[in-house]
């Protein structure tokens, strides 16, 4: 990725805030406590998990801001644990209730449930994928997205999120809260003037000066997707520099952000 890609939009679902802008300004709002998934038709929305709805909210924000055509744009979804709460619900059905599994719950327990729901909602027959790499999920989703943009010369939305893990599997002191974040990327030659640029996506040289992650509460900060949130904060603030894509639990990848129009 020698030439980099432009960031032309971003979006997020942060519990209690309408946007990352509001989160930075400390403007909490009770109506944004839970994700809506407004992009998804009502019937499918009711069946979608909180994670799928949060990813849909973040995705919709990025696509709208970028002005992308939802039926055409490629997408990469990342999540460390995916639909783990749905899986636990199925295990409860199996081991506690002894009832046959819900076919709809089973079909939406797959890691690519959000990718499927969103492709159906937007009538998009293009490329979509769904991946995970524990705390490296944001970095690897960006690598996959940049691979698409660089090799195809086409735009892509990279969207990462994780829901709060079940306490039974991840004890509360190690757990995190729901978070979903998306960035809309396009090849440099297709970007409007002044669009911020990402390049040097690679393992960080530990001595390199880096962007200090914003202060978040610990529960949000432990979310495996927080690295993409930190990137969006850097974009919102117009900060240039290398942004770490994990907060110490991953393999230490980062990406350089440059705002060409900045003084």
């Amino acid at each position: 990725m020698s030439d980099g890609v432009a960031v032309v939009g971003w979006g997020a679902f942060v519990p209690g805030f309408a946007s990352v802008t509001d989160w930075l300004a400390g403007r909490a709002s009770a109506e944004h406590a839970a994700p809506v998934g407004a992009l998804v038709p009502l019937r499918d929305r009711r069946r979608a998990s909180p994670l799928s709805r949060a990813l849909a909210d973040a995705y919709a924000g990025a696509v709208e801001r970028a002005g992308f055509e939802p039926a055409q744009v490629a997408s990469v979804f990342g999540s460390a644990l995916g639909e783990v709460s749905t899986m636990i619900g199925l295990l409860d059905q199996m081991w506690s209730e002894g009832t046959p599994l819900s076919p709809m719950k089973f079909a939406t327990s797959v890691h690519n449930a959000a990718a499927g729901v969103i492709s159906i909602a937007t009538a998009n027959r293009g490329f979509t994928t769904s991946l995970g790499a524990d705390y490296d999920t944001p970095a690897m989703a960006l690598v996959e997205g940049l691979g698409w943009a660089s090799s195809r010369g086409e735009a892509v939305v990279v969207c990462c999120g994780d829901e709060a893990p079940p306490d039974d599997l991840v004890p509360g002191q190690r757990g995190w809260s729901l978070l979903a974040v998306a960035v809309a990327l396009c090849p440099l030659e297709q970007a409007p003037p002044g669009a911020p640029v990402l390049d040097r996506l690679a393992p960080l040289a530990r001595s390199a000066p880096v962007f200090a992650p914003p202060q978040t509460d610990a529960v949000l900060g432990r979310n495996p997707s927080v690295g993409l949130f930190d990137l969006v904060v850097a974009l919102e603030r117009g900060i240039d520099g290398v942004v770490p894509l994990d907060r110490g639990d991953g393999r230490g990848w980062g990406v350089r952000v440059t705002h060409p129009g900045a003084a």
Partner: protein
Amino acid sequence: MSRTPLPITGYAMCNGLGPDRAAVRSALFEGRGGLGPPSIELPFETVVGAVADDLPELPPELAPWSTRTARIGARLIAALAPELDALRGRWRPERIAVVLGTSTAGADVTENAYRRFLAEGALPPDYDLFRHHTYGAILHVVRRLAGAEGPSWVVSTACTSSAKPLASAKRLIEAGIADAAIVGGIDTLCAMTLRGFRSLDALSPEPARPFCTDRRGLNIGEGGALLLVEREGEPLAMLEGIGESSDAHHISAPHPEGAGARLAMERALAEAGLAASAVDHVNAHGTGTRLNDVAEAAAIESLFGREVPVVSTKGYTGHLLGAAGATEAAIAILALEEGWIPASLGADPVDPKIHARIATERIHGRFDRVLSNSFAFGGNNVSVLVGAAR
């Protein structure tokens, strides 16, 4: 826009047909299936394709990551030792990517741990979500055993999970992000998957018979396959094109006319810069469900006509879910290397609604290009086009 083919320099597989490529090859050649009764307790009848319980132990430093998934991974890496030595001789570790696929990850471990939690109020003391269940666990094991330090992630798109890493590898190499990639996938049997497909009324009580008029659904199998894709190297086959598409239709049912499936096949051909007439054989997704087989066969026929032989190998292995795409790509390479394709086990008599040429017997001949299809929940479709190395 056609792209430069990339050499596939090694491959290994392991499933209910046997522990290695030679055993899988023999079973396919002889038309011998690998399905049998499950060891998992189930309240209904079915058969499964299980890997024999003689998997290698992990080295001591990786023992905390020891799961069935990881041990299948270790077996595959060991089978590729000479090819990996050559690969590491050509490329720096940080230029070697690992992109794997799985649909189950460590679900087999977690469902047993959770059952104990419900019974006793505590998870087993040695259970660790991040070493036994998540995607990072298998990545850690494969990276360490293979000596790869490049980008690494797991694709989890249900039944296309291990076909898509081939596309990721191609993009990584084309974009200059990596020089080589270890790709493929691993899935293991678990009760949740078996009961889940049963809930969808998709599970056959007897060995699956893809494309047959009497088919009653699919069987689940476990196993894995790994392939090595490089910028340059001594090829066993060439990765010529990959098409990816979405049905945009339904979360668990295929598009009735196979529109998304056809789109994936067309995109694979377009990427390779080839016409449909260049394809000699199609290794179908061919699950054995009523809906899939008719829709897929219609899409294949509409694109390739009624002469190109079509085979599903799921009657041998069961549906390997997250390992299916890589396994069937490996079987496609076997056809290119050896000049024969297996019979589509159990397909006779072929459903009269299916007009594609289903190969009910083994066919010998020269195969220059084989297309391998994988389709998944979420309407996710992948077609992999591999060509002979000659």
